[in-house]
């Protein structure tokens, strides 16, 4: 190999994965990542820096507006520090978001890959069930489940998962259907590999891009849904705080203590926006057509 030939090759990029490079160059995704990292850091490190814990009641400082003494976000009607509650609630809400992501993505991936691979009757029945679940407004279904099963955080995560797996199932089904007749699957079949092997070792890894995108968007959705049902009083129960149940009593104090509503709402919006931005960036990064645009 001569020197000139080596010089003619394009320089090898520092990061070799094109998808990762595209993702790192996506401004909104980076902004989202920064928002999520800041929030996560605040929720997990913040409580150790504050002089109060989330249950400490300071009766002399009830309804203190933000910036009063060491109460950076003010206090609630009982005199509890809002910042301490917000950070602790963030741990709960984000933990639920991630739990739902894992559970819903697993259910959705299994349903999607099975109905996509086998097709025919099985797929028809499974996809009709998906359609049926999609015909309920998910908030209705979740509230019914949450109202009758007196829920703890684990149960809430399961209930939200039960109404969040359908999107992933649809995406995986469509993806697997398009991969099913490709040569590598034919080859695997001719080698006599079992259906289970083909589905989980050949097809699913090839559909990983859309699955990661859907999983990221599921975190955003789960945080939002937790906020909805906790706001309505059927989600995470006090004294355990969550971003949703912090807003539960906020409406009656809207006139006198608007920060009770504003602070947790901004935290929810930031977290959900962050995950949505990341999901959008991932979608563009995995889409090979992005380069051509």
């Amino acid at each position: 190999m001569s020197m000139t030939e080596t010089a003619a090759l394009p320089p090898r990029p520092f990061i070799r994965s094109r998808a990762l490079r595209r993702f790192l160059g996506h401004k909104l995704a980076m902004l989202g990542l920064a928002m999520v990292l800041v929030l996560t850091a605040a929720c997990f490190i913040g409580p150790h820096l504050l002089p109060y814990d989330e249950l400490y009641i300071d009766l002399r400082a009830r309804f203190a507006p933000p910036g009063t003494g060491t109460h950076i976000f003010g206090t609630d009607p009982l005199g509890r520090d809002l910042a301490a509650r917000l950070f602790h609630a963030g741990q709960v809400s984000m933990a639920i978001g991630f739990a739902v992501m894992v559970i819903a993505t697993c259910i959705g991936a299994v349903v999607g890959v099975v109905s996509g691979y086998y097709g025919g009757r099985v797929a028809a029945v499974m996809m009709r069930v998906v359609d049926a679940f999609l015909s309920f407004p998910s908030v209705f279904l979740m509230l019914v489940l949450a109202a009758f099963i007196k829920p703890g955080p684990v149960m809430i995560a399961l209930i939200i998962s039960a109404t969040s797996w359908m999107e992933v199932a649809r995406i995986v089904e469509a993806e697997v259907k398009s991969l099913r007749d490709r040569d590598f699957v034919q080859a695997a079949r001719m080698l006599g590999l079992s259906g289970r092997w083909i589905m989980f070792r050949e097809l699913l890894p090839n559909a990983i891009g859309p699955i990661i995108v859907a999983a990221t968007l599921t975190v955003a959705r789960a945080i939002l849904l937790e906020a909805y049902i906790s706001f309505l009083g059927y989600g995470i129960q006090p004294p355990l705080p969550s971003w949703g149940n912090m807003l539960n009593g906020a409406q009656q104090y809207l006139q006198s203590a608007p920060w009770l509503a504003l602070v947790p709402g901004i935290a929810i919006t930031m977290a959900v926006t962050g995950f949505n931005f990341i999901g959008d960036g991932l979608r563009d990064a995995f889409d090979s057509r992005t380069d051509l645009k």
Partner: protein
Amino acid sequence: MLRYVLGRFWQSLVLLLIVSFIGFTVLSLAPGGPLSQFALSPGMTQEQLDKIATQMGLNRPLPVQYFDWLSHLVTGDWGRSYRDGQPVLTIIGQHLFATLILMGTSTVLAVSLGTTIGIVSALRRRSVFDYTMTVFAMIALSIPTFWFGLVAIYFFSLKLGWFPAGNMFTVGDGSLLDYVRHLVLPAMVLALVDVAVWSRYMRTATLNVVNQDFIRTARAKGLSRTRILFRHIVGNALVPMVTLAGLQLPALLGGALVTETVFTWPGMGRLFLDSLGYSDYPVVMGLLMTSAILVLIGNLAADLIVAAIDPRIRLE
């Protein structure tokens, strides 16, 4: 065409059957069960509870109960509320109108605003407007509807005093203007998410149409820009939007539920929450079925409209 209509109709019925089965199973298997409310009354003995269970047919096997309930459902007997003994259909009928008004107004708002933003974004692709609207849409999709409602109440009714903070009308004031003033805030809040969704989809749909051959043909024929825009581009881009309107219905109903709660709007969402709090099983089940029926009718109507205006669909 008739075959297509009938086929879609049967599919919807099957779907409704699955929906009713899921709903019934969830409610029946829930701990406590329909009797929990009766068990709360003072001096209630197990003997009396058993009697009520027998009267209501709750001691029969679940499949029998399901088919019994289903056959009554079909004949229009949806049971009676545990709370005040009124027929479920009557109660739902009283609350349906308020919800439909709210949903209708917000949809009109969202569609007109969303499609306009989408078309402009597509025609001025990669402009400042396009980028701003993209970011705006993603943030709008991330704001919890109920929280946006609280913020809107704080600014527009508590601080500025422009609109009332809740309810559907002022008692004693029956004027149309009064209704409209009460409708503005909840409809705006409910429309926010939909504006975002509609603008995104309309942008994509417009871009898909703009690059097609018949637009080039129309230009080559020397048609005016406005005629191409409105007749050829917008006309074709709106077709997939009809399907979207159907698909958006469950989200819209869910949004209406929380919006009604924040604005004390007397619709199905409020009724649903009140009935849940009271474990009023027949009403809860009736509302689940009503929402599913609304969604399926919406989807069916959307599919039929698309088939009617787009001959390509019918031939498939």
